[in-house]
């Protein structure tokens, strides 16, 4: 394979961005559909090239291809080189990014049809895809950070795509700022690692960490710094607040960026740096604890949301928590020497990334389904839906498949990777295992709450409102083929992606098709899932129980969940506004104008006053000057007489 192929995978969508921004938008604005075609074609080509890379990697010894790198900056002995890394992890991620992106771009051509920002949308989507591919291919921490921020930029631009809506503008700012707090730690960790090792190269850092050449405390701090970046990007507690608000962006954006790829970059980062993490028990324990806690914490909020996209957003946070948990518990096993190092490194990556792989398909499918529903009804509020099974059969079936997959029903995709995580949690961190099991039940409940409220029963919407998300007046009918077809393909993937040998390719274990059913944990989790579905059915479809009375019985909990534990209020109203902007910053501003500048103006004013005072002496009267001279002479003479 020519060494330019990985580069081309990244450059094709980038050129698509350039062409749309600098040729189509200024000169061919009457033909915006060209932007969609170019984006789709370039990403499709990237997908084909990614498959080529995958084939090459799987036949290469050790699943690694060596690639040339280039000097970017050299000052004294500080040299920064950029290159690409092509190994099993990168190859899998390339497939995820290009395939989901391709399907989302096809879908977007229907969903965004007629939007005045059509070309701008595809320009940003192309740029995002390019940066995401760059992130995956980066072979050192500096270039990884560059693309890391780049995808964050695109996320900002696309959340704020409908910038004239105040909520969208606010959500965009919030997303950027919250993730930047995590990036602060990431950048500090990069500098810290460099100052201790003299390299940014990820491969070299792996060697040094595994060889014990980096001190234990250094590793722990560096890993925690890197992890703080991942917490921000993957919306883990306590930096999770931006992701639900990010749903203000167009729904295909949520599917691609805020479900399948960018938010998974945090998982990818931890997987990519796994040898560093696994060398520190503190670091992996932190990863597992944050992941396990976030999984159940986000799920509780998903239980009560009425906006279908927000349910899916909290679900995404929760599933990302699962992935962190998977990475963390295997890391704990490695750090405790319960798993031999040579097995554990591949296993950890495989457990985390396999769920990322499956999640990318079923979660983007669910989001596209939500978009399709919105396309028809003009709302995202599940209280305004119902009965859509009849008018939107394809959306219904694909959404159902996605839901069963995320819940983890054998033999759908979600089952396989979730079992891996649960098994390892059981082996290495029992407390977190129980949290994860409870989360399985919650996941089943909140997903099927959405399914029943949206698709079962009778239509409850007024069908008058129209959110502005799509230019069409809403009318209850199935979405066009250009939207349904990508959903169909994703539905197939949501079934079969777990059957692919991704886990063993990444260095993990793989289960036989029926062998997986021999595990008791698999049965327990499926029973829990079934109970969750049953409860949702009882409440929202069969109405054996009244959801209203249930809510009243658990009113404090319901309030706690639906108010999102008041964390948004704490961050925004209390910390940002009260403490900082309207607190400390006011004080400092007062200090600046009154004290610092006050002293300056005081000196100036004092000089003027003193000048005015002294000016009185200059009366211009000779008699007065004469008296002054006389007195002065007398004084001098007196001094001479006394001291002389």
């Amino acid at each position, binding site marked *: 394979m020519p060494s330019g192929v990985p580069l081309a995978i990244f450059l094709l969508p980038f050129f698509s961005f350039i062409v749309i921004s600098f040729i189509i938008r200024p000169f061919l604005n009457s033909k915006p559909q060209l932007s969609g075609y170019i984006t789709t074609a370039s990403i499709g080509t990237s997908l084909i090239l990614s498959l080529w890379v995958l084939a090459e990697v799987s036949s290469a010894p050790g699943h690694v291809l060596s690639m040339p790198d280039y000097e970017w900056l050299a000052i004294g002995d500080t040299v920064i080189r950029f290159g690409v890394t092509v190994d099993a992890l990168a190859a899998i991620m390339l497939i995820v990014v290009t395939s989901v992106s391709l399907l989302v771009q096809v879908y977007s051509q229907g969903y965004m049809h007629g939007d005045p920002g059509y070309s701008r949308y595809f320009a940003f989507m192309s740029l995002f895809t390019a940066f995401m591919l760059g992130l995956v291919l980066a072979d050192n921490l500096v270039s990884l950070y560059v693309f890391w921020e780049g995808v964050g930029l695109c996320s900002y631009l696309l959340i704020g795509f409908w910038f004239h809506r105040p909520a969208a503008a606010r959500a965009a700012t919030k997303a950027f700022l919250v993730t930047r707090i995590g990036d602060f730690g990431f950048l500090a960790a990069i500098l*810290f690692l460099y100052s201790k090792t003299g390299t940014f190269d990820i491969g070299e850092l792996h060697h040094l960490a595994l060889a014990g050449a980096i001190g234990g405390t250094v590793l722990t701090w560096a890993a925690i710094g890197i992890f703080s970046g991942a917490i921000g990007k993957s919306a883990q507690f306590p930096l999770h607040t931006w992701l639900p608000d990010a749903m203000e962006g167009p729904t295909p954006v949520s599917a691609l960026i805020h479900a399948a790829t960018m938010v998974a970059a945090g998982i990818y980062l931890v997987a990519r740096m796994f040898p560093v993490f696994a060398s520190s028990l503190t670091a992996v324990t932190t990863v597992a604890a944050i992941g396990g806690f976030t999984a159940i914490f986000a799920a509780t909020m998903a239980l009560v949301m009425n906006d279908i996209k927000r349910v899916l957003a909290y679900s995404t946070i929760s599933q990302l928590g699962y992935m962190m948990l998977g990475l963390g518990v295997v890391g704990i096993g490695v750090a405790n020497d319960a798993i031999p190092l040579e097995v554990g490194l591949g296993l950890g990556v495989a457990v985390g990334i396999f769920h990322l792989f499956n999640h990318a398909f079923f979660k983007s499918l669910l989001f596209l389904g939500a978009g399709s529903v919105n396309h028809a009804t003009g709302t995202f509020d599940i209280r305004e839906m119902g009965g859509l099974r009849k008018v939107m059969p394809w959306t219904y079936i694909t959404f159902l498949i996605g839901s069963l997959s995320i819940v983890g029903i054998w033999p759908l995709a979600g089952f396989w990777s979730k079992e891996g995580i649960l098994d390892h949690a059981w082996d290495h961190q029992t407390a977190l295992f129980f949290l994860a099991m409870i989360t399985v039940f919650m996941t089943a409940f909140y997903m099927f709450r959405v399914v029943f409220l949206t698709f079962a029963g009778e239509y409850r919407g007024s069908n008058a409102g129209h959110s502005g998300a799509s230019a069409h007046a809403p009318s209850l009918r199935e979405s066009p083929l250009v939207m349904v077809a990508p959903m169909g393909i994703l539905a197939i993937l949501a079934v079969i992606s777990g059957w692919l040998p991704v886990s063993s390719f990444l260095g993990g274990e793989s289960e036989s098709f029926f062998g997986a059913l021999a595990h008791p944990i698999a049965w327990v989790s499926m029973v829990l899932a079934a109970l969750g579905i049953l409860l949702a059915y009882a409440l929202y479809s069969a109405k054996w129980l009244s959801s209203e009375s249930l809510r009243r019985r658990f009113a404090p909990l319901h309030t706690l969940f639906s108010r999102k534990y008041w964390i948004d209020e704490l961050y925004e109203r209390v910390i940002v506004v009260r403490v900082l902007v309207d607190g400390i910053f006011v004080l400092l501003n007062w200090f600046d104008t009154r004290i610092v500048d006050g002293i300056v103006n005081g000196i100036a004013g004092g000089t003027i006053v003193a000048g005015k005072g002294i000016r009185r002496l200059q009366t211009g009267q000779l008699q007065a000057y004469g008296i002054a001279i006389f007195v002065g002479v007398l004084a001098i003479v007196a001094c001479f007489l006394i001291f002389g």
Partner: protein
Amino acid sequence: MDFPYLSIIVFLPVIGAILIALLPQADPRRIKFTAAFFTLAVFALSLSLFFMFDTGLEGAQFVERASWIPAIDAQYFLGVDGLSLPMLVLATFLGFIAVLVSWKIDLRVREYFAWLLVLETGVLGVFCSLDLLLFFLFWEVEILPMFLLISIWGTGRKEYSAMKFVIFTLAGSAMMLAGILLLYFHGGTFDMMELAGMGLEGAISTLLATAIFFLLFIGYAVKLPVFPFHTWLPDAHTDAPTAVSVILAGILLKMGGYGMIRVCVSIFPGVSQDYAVLLVALALVNIIYGAAVTFRQRDLKRLIAYSSISHMGYVLLGIFALSQVSMTGAILQMFSHGLITGLLFALVGLVYDKTHVRDIPQLGGLARRMPIIAVVFSVAGLAALGLPGTSGFAAEFLVFLGSFKSTLVDGIQTYTILGMVGIVLTAGYILWLLQRVFYGPIKAQYDKVTDANRLEQFTIISMVAVIMLIGIYPAVLTDIIKVGVSPIIASLGL
């Protein structure tokens, strides 16, 4: 002596100024074209020096040396090295840009452009002089045109602000002059290169060396500006015409950072090292305090002015972290900030020009009516908050990287981490600014405002192009800067 490139570069603007003053007809267009022609020619010449510069050589190039005042051995001594060449290119580029953003000036056009060109000669002279007395002379040349440009063509409390600028600068200059004279009496020469190489510190008492260092430092600290000498800056910026803000932020502040490296650190490496912790702490005050105060500004120009104070903190940090990478980063940050903040002031000027409003709460939703200005403003803002792919990232990254692994300053790692808090704060006020000015529903009174015209588009987009170029491939500049920095680092005894 070869072709006198530097003399031509330095004096071409003043020749242009004289020509404008003597132009027979007061046709404003002719005056503007003349000014544009001269500044463009100067920029082209400095760019040609940029390409001819030999990155394999340390020390000054394109040197011109002649006896000036033989009695005190003052020389007419020009030359550029890795420190000054980037500043020269920046100053000539922004000089041209300043003429373009002044295109709509219609008050006393002839005088305006004449003074603008005189101002350019002053700053170019500062960056090219290698003789301290000549350096000081050029340093003072800039004051008069600045005073007139602010007090005549400014807005608001323009006389107050102009006078404040002059008094602060002169107070700093007085200290600097005392420092220069002490240097002359103890070193016996005004030649900067010779002073830097003679090991003056060892020959005089530590107390005297420290005193001279701080006399000079305060002169530069007023210019940069360093807390607590910064309060002239927001006033001067707020009331200055757009082009003067561009020059002020883009070039004049950089004279301070340049002076610190060229004079303070080069001549007194030992004192620099002794007081590095103090100066780094001041840098942190600039970064964090500056950013905190920025949040409270309602006036667009004042906001950008305070953000400059914060960003100049990175320059101070980079210089006194005393490593090759950090100092290279500091100079790159000066270059980058000159472009970014110059661009931001140009854009604020455009917004004000179209809406006649600078009060942020009164603005809103402008992206609808001025998409190009909104896009460029966003890019400039993102560059200011250090987004990768822009010069802001490259510069700040180098400052942090170099500072973090510096070996000469105690506790520098903690200070660097504290300084990095600035990148979060900057993101906060920049994004909040963009949100309040450009996003959200457009207010009814701005329904008729227009976007940038062709000339304005050319101006702002050309600046964006340079910002991106440096961001994507910073080695364009750092390969030159590091040649200038390495002898200074060598003198620190590494």
